[in-house]
């Protein structure tokens, strides 16, 4: 329609000879927008390629896998660096584990700023979108803290330690400075708490965060902060809202893809940054971990393929494909609730969550209720965390946290080219260096390694 008249219009404008703002208001490219309406912000927060991702190198650094010597050489430099606990992990290569979460923070800040500018807005939509943006920001900060800042200290002194760079506004020129660890954790706490208050109970698809997802992230965060009561409360509330459960007895655990995308088990979808490690045929699951699965544990079949003697590789992942899942699952929520409760002595309830989970993971004939208590119960729960949550990038955080208890501390060791290398509990190598790019361009302080 418009085209038909454009020529007439041109002559008209020419004849009148006025500068014509409408004429110049046409978009140079129809697919461009300045995010300014609720709809624009909605689709901005639906950018799953940017927002539903999280750092991956925690997989390499942890104790869940080993890589053959030949396989190691085929990995990217930062992957090798993380696996070998090198001082300079990134070796000059791009550090996606650092830039990806900050890109998410930027998107979240753009959305938050734009939301305030929208003149007429539906309250529910506003709350949902604000909640999502805050969730994504908190989610991103949380993952940055797990790699680039020291673990939250059980013994205190978190005000003296360096945390991460916090960004409140979508201004790319804003000065970058590292906050203290305490400030960083409380910011994540603030973002996630507000998100949990604003977000709706359910959303479709599961790439959009919900109240249960925000509570789940809060539980993760509070575990890190040794707030076991808080972690248990958040996880329990999340489990109440999100009531679906997946019983592995109801799926074909032998199939190539036992899980489907956005399945019942998934509370919130997020995947780890794609790296060679995930696809490599030379990366194997830790043998001790494999051995810890009991007879009749369906996870052994659903999660793994045996490719040789003592050689297991991951198969079933909640992403429904080969990519590693890093989002929130009901299994994780139950284990967080159980662990939190166990730490604070509510053992009955803790056992309840653990048994409920196990009954959905074991063949009925092999399932025996756990009736351990005290330290045994806690150890049982911690072992189940390893077994249930392999390949999610969570183990690294657990190692950092549990190493602060001498009785739970673990020295990670691996054999590389015939040499035994190790990562001592509470080693400074549990904190990744800030990538050179960042140090050079914004001048923030480097971590001591």
């Amino acid at each position, binding site marked *: 329609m418009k085209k038909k008249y*454009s020529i007439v219009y041109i002559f008209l404008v020419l004849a009148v000879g006025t500068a014509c703002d409408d004429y110049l208001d*046409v*978009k*140079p490219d129809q697919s461009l927008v300045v995010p300014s309406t609720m709809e624009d912000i909605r689709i901005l927060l639906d*950018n799953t390629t940017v927002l*539903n991702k999280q750092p991956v190198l925690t997989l390499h650094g942890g104790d869940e896998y080993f890589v053959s010597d030949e396989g190691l050489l085929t990995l990217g430099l930062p992957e090798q660096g993380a696996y070998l606990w090198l001082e300079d992990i990134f070796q000059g290569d791009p550090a996606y584990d650092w*830039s990806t979460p900050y890109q998410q923070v930027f998107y979240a800040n753009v959305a938050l700023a734009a939301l305030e500018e929208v003149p007429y807005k539906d309250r529910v939509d506003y709350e949902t979108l604000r909640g999502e943006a805050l969730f994504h920001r908190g989610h991103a900060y949380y993952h940055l803290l797990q790699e680039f800042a020291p673990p939250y200290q059980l013994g205190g002194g978190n005000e003296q330690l360096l945390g991460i760079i916090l960004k409140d506004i*979508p201004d790319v020129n804003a000065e970058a400075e590292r906050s203290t660890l305490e400030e960083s954790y409380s910011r994540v706490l603030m973002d996630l708490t507000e998100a949990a208050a604003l977000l709706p109970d359910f959303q479709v698809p599961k790439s959009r965060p919900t109240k249960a997802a925000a509570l789940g992230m809060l539980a993760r965060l509070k575990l890190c902060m040794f707030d076991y009561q808080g972690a248990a409360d958040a996880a329990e509330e999340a489990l109440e809202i999100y009531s679906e459960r997946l019983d592995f007895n109801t799926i074909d655990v032998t199939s190539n893809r036992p899980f489907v995308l956005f399945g019942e088990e998934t509370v919130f979808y997020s995947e780890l940054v794609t790296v060679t490690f995930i696809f490599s045929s030379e990366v194997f699951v830790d043998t001790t971990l494999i051995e810890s699965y009991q007879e009749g544990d369906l996870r052994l079949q659903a999660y793994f393929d045996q490719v040789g003697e003592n050689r297991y590789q991951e198969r079933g992942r909640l992403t429904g494909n080969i990519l590693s899942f890093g989002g929130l699952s009901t299994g994780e929520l139950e284990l967080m609730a159980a662990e939190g409760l166990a730490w604070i002595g509510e053992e009955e309830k803790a056992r309840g969550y653990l048994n409920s989970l196990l009954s959905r993971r074991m063949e009925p004939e092999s399932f025996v209720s756990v009736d351990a208590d005290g330290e045994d119960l806690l150890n049982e729960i911690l072992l189940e965390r390893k077994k249930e949550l392999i390949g999610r990038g969570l183990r690294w955080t657990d190692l950092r946290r549990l190493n602060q208890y001498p009785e739970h501390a673990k020295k990670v060791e691996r054999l590389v080219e015939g040499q035994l290398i190790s990562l001592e509990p509470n080693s400074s190598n549990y904190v990744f260096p800030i990538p050179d790019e960042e140090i050079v*361009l914004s001048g923030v302080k480097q971590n001591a390694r």
Partner: protein
Amino acid sequence: MRKLAFVLIGIFILSFQAAEAQKITVSGKVIEADSQMPLAGAMATVLPIGESLIADGEGMFSLALEPGEYRFILQFIGYASLDTLVSVIMSEKLIFELKPLEMGLDEVEVISTGYQEIPKSRASGSFVSLDEELIDRRISTNLVDRLEDVTSGLIFNRAGDQVRDPISIRGRSTLGNFSQPLIVIDNFPFDGSLEDINPNDVQSITVLRDAAAASIWGARAGNGVIVITTKTGKMDQAMKFSLTANTNWIQQPDPFLSPNLSVSDFIAFEVQLFETGYYNSTFSNPSRPAITPVVETLYQEREGLISGEEADRRIAAYRSYDLRDDIQRYLYRPQLNQQYSLGLSGGSSHHSYLVALGYDKQRLSEVGNSSNRFTLNVKNDFSLIKDKLGIQLGLYGVKSRQVDQNAGANELYFTSNQGMYPYARLADDSGNPLALTNRFSNSFKQEAESAGLLDWQYVPLDEIGRSPTEAIQDDWRLNLSLDYKLLKGLEMKVLYQYWQQMNMDVTSYSQDSYFAREQINLFSEFDENGNLIRNIPMGGILRRSERFSSSHSVRGMLDYSTSWQESWKFSSLAGVELKSLNYETSSRGLYGYRPETASIQTVDFLTRFPQYHNPRLTSQIPNSDGIGAGADRFYSLFANGSLEYGNRYLLTVSARKDASNLFGVDANQRAVPLWSAGLGWTLSEEGFYNWDNIPYVKMRFSYGYNGNVDRNLSAYTTARISSGAALTDLPFATIVNPPNRNLRWERIKIANLGVDVESKNGRISGTLEFYLKEGLDLIGQSPYAPSSGIQVFNGNNSSTSTKGFDLQLETRNLTGEFQWNTVLLLSGLKEEVTGYEIESPVSSLLDRGASGAGGGVNFPVVGRPLFSYYSLPWAGLNPETGAPMGMLNGEPSEDYRTLVNEASLGSIVYHGPARPTTFGALRNTFSYKGISLSANISYRFGYYFRRTSVQYNSIMMGRGGHSDYALRWQVPGDEEFTQIPSMPDTRDTFRDTFYRNSAALIEKGDHIRLQDIRLGYMLPKIQSGYLSGVSRAELFLYGNNLGIIWKSTDTDWDPDFGWATPRKSIALGLQLNF
């Protein structure tokens, strides 16, 4: 130049004098009026018989005429024509006196700025004009190529993002993506592709180089303007035909130029790697990746499937093959371009017309590929109401079609990160196509086939023709202009142009094609009952993308000129211009395509299907459906004026304000005012000037601003919406532009000082100009800290400066029967980035300082040219080990990691610019009778280039590498004659990086090239028969890219093209006018 052609015709006509009985011999002498010296080479045309004659060395000519009255027209370059009536009664000697032109330069030269045609005398700015003869001198399908080495100050870039930035006029005054000159065709900026303009349709080209020349184009003129005018008919002219035909033979691409590791070395590495167990993970990889034949052979030997002798026999055979032999033999051929054009023009006193048809046919060098182009140019000009009203109608159309059936050597790949193994054979000894191993292992492919999947063999020669890509383009331009003389000196003009272009690219992968077979196979799976399910249906795959663009441009202007008191002349012009361009794009990917029934099948784009080679991998069926639309709007006000006094003093001013629909920019930032002013002083017109040998001297000075605009930027956060996110299938937005409140248009300040001189008789004429360009508020793309959420940021944070000169000198060294003319172009410039806020990372400077990272990301350093070569200091090879050595704290070092990582701007070597700082061409033209020979020698100095050399990492991973491997240091003492490092014991990327970026590989690029030679032969005029109507017939031979005459480097490397030296070509052509 054009007259030279007439001169040549004349010579032949002379030799065809027919002596008939009643005729009497008339002889003439042409002399200069003042000195009474004979004018050798002057041309006499005798009407109505239409004979043209050339005066000999004594200024004499003679011919036989029947008694009667004749009109004699005498012409000579640099002299006013003489047109006189003579009654011939008896044999006599006539004397013709020609007067030198007062202002020789002005007689022929009228400059088109795209807005108006102004005589050169009224120009204060910097223009370069190319006439038809110069444009036609070179043979090419592409118009732009014809500017090369004949346009002063214009250079074709061979370094520094040259794909996006192929041409620079007086350097580069912008840092980003928008570095190309504005192209104007027939008064309006051109939106189509220049490849579509048939060079045979072009009358003239003017290049506008400074602010005074280009400021009329305002915000788009910052990179210079190239104004192209197509041919039109002439009033009062009898109907004329012209015919041009030529065939250009271009050398076949030579795959052996690529410096590759030898086949036997390649195989030696494979054998060695196999022995260390390097391929074990490949053998066990569940994705079943491809294994090269040598590794496969070794594997079979190890597994006991074949004997050791058999393995040795096979490997010995592989050693004797070279893929490049087969590429040369089966994939390539010499390119053949044919060009034809036919024109018809003429005019009466109130009307003129021109119709020209062009046809270009190219047989491309890849076997099976071809392209053709039809062009149509129709012009009708009317002069009505006592010449008060002028109407010009023009139609220009192009239809072109390219068919690619053969992707050439580029498509030959082994896996996604490795090229084809060098001992691959495309055909056996009797020429039967052979299958190559690629992507997946042969055993896997065979298993798949026996399980019922489609044949998975990759036979490159069979692929030719199986997936033809057809690119079709239709381009139409309709011009209408009206001018009306309202009052004396006041003229109103309205110009309108409608342009539309349709592009369509269709690739039809037939079911036989490897691509379609592989797609179908990858998306095949077996259900529980063992039934084969094909998620991509059988049939071909059709991909089709279309783009439709159209624009309306309209300009209205008033032209006023007057003069008073004889000495004062004033002329001015003011107007408004609007342009609206819209485009729409769409693309489709269709599956199960059966051309015979024109049917397709729908597929499921949403489900993630398992991939056949590794069912744990899932993937959606590739979906290439898409749609897009957009628009450009421009609105401009412009005015200029000139005031002249006594033919001596000239003042020009020009101003323009532009606005466009830059997205997300506040209305007040859309518009930018730009202006210029110029002064001219014709010194030779002054009373006190009395140097007779240099009768013409003019000085010019101009100053002003042009603009440049990056239309991708916006002041607000801008996001691009895409449909169908992979995970959710929902629309999603990606932020493409972070907010920038201070975004402004780039401005380029130019000062230009020029001198034009011409000697007596026009023997020497020349122009020398000095200029200073400053790029201000330039948009620089700078790396940002990742914590900001972006990688790079664009802002008006930079500035550049360019100082330079352009000299154009033309001499007529010999006149007379044997003529020798020389044109010298010499340009020099010094470019420098004067402001840039971010320090470019040293690693980027070393790796890509000379080229940029693409997409407008360059690495400026204040005080240096934008594109420069930097390197790590080189301390030679270690005489013991042959290891390369760098310098660390003044000491030779082999700590490559530190050498690479700790390099700083202070420690690295700055060599110099990557683009020439002194360049030009020397063109000599000799002519004798009908034969003319012209050779163009181009030269480029004052810049550097980097050679490639061996990188051991790739070689030691069995992926091949550089032929320098054979020349490496091997035993102590080798360092005397080689600088190529020894092979390290283990792979060391830092060692490779150090050597790649070291000073050892940087050399001076200075060279002189014999660019081309043109040999023309003007056929003698045929006096009778049906060919007697031919007024001009020229046969010519043209050779291009003839070779380097001298270069600074001792290596084989071509400083401009590396190992991919430009292909030589020879053209044979014919030009006829009748």
